[in-house]
Structures are given as C-alpha cells and as structure tokens.
C-alpha cells in the first residue's frame, strides 16, 4: 500500500485512517448532514465534469482547442503527412485510370478500324452479301447477241463509276471473275447466264447510271446490237448476294511487310 501513497498527503481515503465514529452524538447531527450534502455535491460535480469532458472529447474543435502547442504541431504534421500520402495515392490512381482509359479507347478504335477494314475486304472478296444504294441494269437479249466484250465493257464502266459490289443474274463478281463464251452462251465463273441479264451494282446510283448512259457508252453499245434493249433503274436499297463459294488461294502468299495493316 505504500507505493500508491507517494502522491498522497495524509488525506488517504482508503486505509490507515481511523474510522469515522459509528454513531455521532445528536449535537453533531447537523454537521453530519452537512458533510453528507458536501459528499453528494462532490459526487454531482464529478458527474457533471465527467459529462463535460466526454462531450469535449467528442467535439473535435473543442478537443483541438484544449491541446498544447507542441501536441497541436504534432497533430498538424501527422495530418499533413497523411494528406500528402493520400494526395500522391490519388494522383497515382488517377494516372492508372487514365492509362487504362486510353488503352481501352485505343483498343476500341483499333477494333473499329479493323472491323471496318474486314468488312470492306469481305465485300471485295464477295464472301458476304452487300447491300446499299445502287442500280439494277436489265439487258433484254432474246437472240443471245450480247458478246462477252460488251458485257465486260458494261461491268468495267460500272466499276469505273464507283461500283463496290456487282452481280450478274445473282452471280457475284469478284476480282478473279471472268466472262467467257461457251457454245454461244455467256458464262461467268463457270455459271452459264441466260437472258435477260440483270446486273446489280451497289455504289453511287446517280453516277453509275449517268456513266452507263453517256452517248457512245455502255448502253449505246449494247443497244446497237439488234434485238437488245436495256433499262437502268436507280434504287435506294439493292442487295448483291454472296459468292457461292470463296475463291481458293493456292499460289499466292502475302509479302510480309514491316508495317501493320
């Protein structure tokens, strides 16, 4: 018990004190009541101060008000360091986010451009049907008088005018397509053609129609043949079918290039 008496004076409330008289004389009863009132007052004061202190601790502003200067400096330094750390973390995350965003954007761009390129090549190769603005040329030729040269001329004229996808009697024309004449019948890529020949072309309708109808052009040449008549019809929507089977590549290989597609 001696160790905890170091701070105390002789007012130790616990031990070592003589007990209060168990039954005070009646003349001291008033003092006794007063003493009890003082004890109660002290206890009430403690409760009051306890609540005040708890409230002050809960309130950050009041708590800071009560701190000593060196403690305030320490708190400020801690908070500054924390702010710096969080700020740099924020910046880092922001950079990461930007990097991810730009990567995603680039990938989306690249994917879109590749998809577009793939679509164009598919149309060129004729492996997919194509649709869009275009014209339909109908060549009526009951006597089968139209030669392969005339047909090739008409096709070339259309390509020159910007045709992107072509078909004759629903046979898709591609880069390797060829017209030949066999036993008096026009044959394209092995498919015999019977009149009337219907040439479907996806492309700038107005330009292609004008290109066919210029004096001395494809229409004039075709109609100079006996019994042949042509109609050119512009359409807002025309569909060209896909090629029945893709062209096999056996001999050709792409030459590698350093640049990407």
């Amino acid at each position, binding site marked *: 018990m001696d160790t905890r008496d170091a701070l105390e004076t002789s007012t130790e409330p616990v031990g070592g004190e003589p*007990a209060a008289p168990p039954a005070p004389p009646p003349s001291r009863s008033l003092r006794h009541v007063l003493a009890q009132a003082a004890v109660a007052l002290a*206890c009430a004061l403690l409760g009051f101060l*306890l609540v005040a*202190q708890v409230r002050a601790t809960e309130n950050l502003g009041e708590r800071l*008000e009560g701190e000593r200067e060196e403690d305030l400096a320490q708190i400020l330094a801690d908070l500054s360091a924390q702010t710096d750390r969080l700020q740099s973390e924020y910046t880092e995350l922001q950079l990461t986010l930007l990097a991810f965003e730009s990567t995603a954007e680039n990938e989306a761009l690249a994917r879109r451009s590749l998809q577009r390129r793939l679509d164009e090549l598919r149309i060129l190769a004729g492996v997919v049907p194509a649709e869009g603005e275009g014209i339909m040329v109908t060549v009526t030729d009951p006597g089968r008088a139209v030669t392969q040269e005339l047909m090739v001329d008409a096709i070339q004229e259309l390509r020159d005018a910007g045709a992107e996808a072509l078909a004759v009697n629903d046979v898709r024309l591609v880069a390797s397509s060829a017209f030949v004449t066999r036993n008096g019948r026009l044959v394209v890529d092995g498919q015999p053609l019977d009149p009337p020949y219907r040439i479907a072309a996806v492309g700038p309708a107005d330009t292609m129609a004008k290109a066919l109808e210029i004096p001395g052009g494809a229409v004039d040449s075709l109609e100079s043949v006996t019994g042949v008549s042509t109609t050119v019809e512009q359409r807002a929507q025309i569909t060209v079918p896909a090629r029945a089977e893709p062209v096999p590549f056996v001999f050709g290989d792409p030459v590698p290039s350093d640049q990407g597609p």
Partner: protein
Amino acid sequence: MIPLIALLLGALLGLVLQPSVPGFLAPYLPVAVVAALDAVFGGLRARLDGTFSERVFLVSFLTNVILAVFLVYLGDQLSVGSELSTAVVVVFGVRIFQNLAAVRRHLFRA
C-alpha cells in the same frame, strides 16, 4: 446511495446543460476528472471496509483534484505538461484499479 444518486443527477445536469469546456481549462479537466474518480472509488472502498468518513472523503477529493491540476499546470510551465498529465493519469489509474480490486473482493469475496 445518496452519493450515487447525486452522481447520476450531476451527469444528467451535464447532459441537459451541455457545458462547453473553456479553452484554458481543457488540459486540466481530464486529470481533474481522473483524480476525482480515484477519490470516489477510494470512498466506495472505505465504505465497504467500514472506515468511510465524510471529512476524509472531502479532503481527499479536493486535494486529489487540486494536486493533479497543479501538477499538470506546473508541467505545462516546465514544458513537460503532456508527460506529467500522462504520469498523473497512470498513477491515478493504478490506484483506481487497486481500489476496484478491493471493492471486488468485498462484493464477490474473490
């Protein structure tokens, strides 16, 4: 019983009045509260020992609080205020634990 009711009444009063601690008192209120707590627990123990005296309790209460506040004030003047308030809280904390242990032995006989 009366002191306990008074304690609760004081706490209730604090809750109702919502006092704010003035700035110059703020460093001293915590140690004052801890010192007063020590006096109250000491009184509780003395009561259970059968040695409680109002005079001793009041003197102990006042001197505990005044001494604790004075020590911390002195520490502030010597710029060891926070260390000394820690010391005061530790000393009173140990005493409160000892008093509570004595109270426990009385109440639970263990």
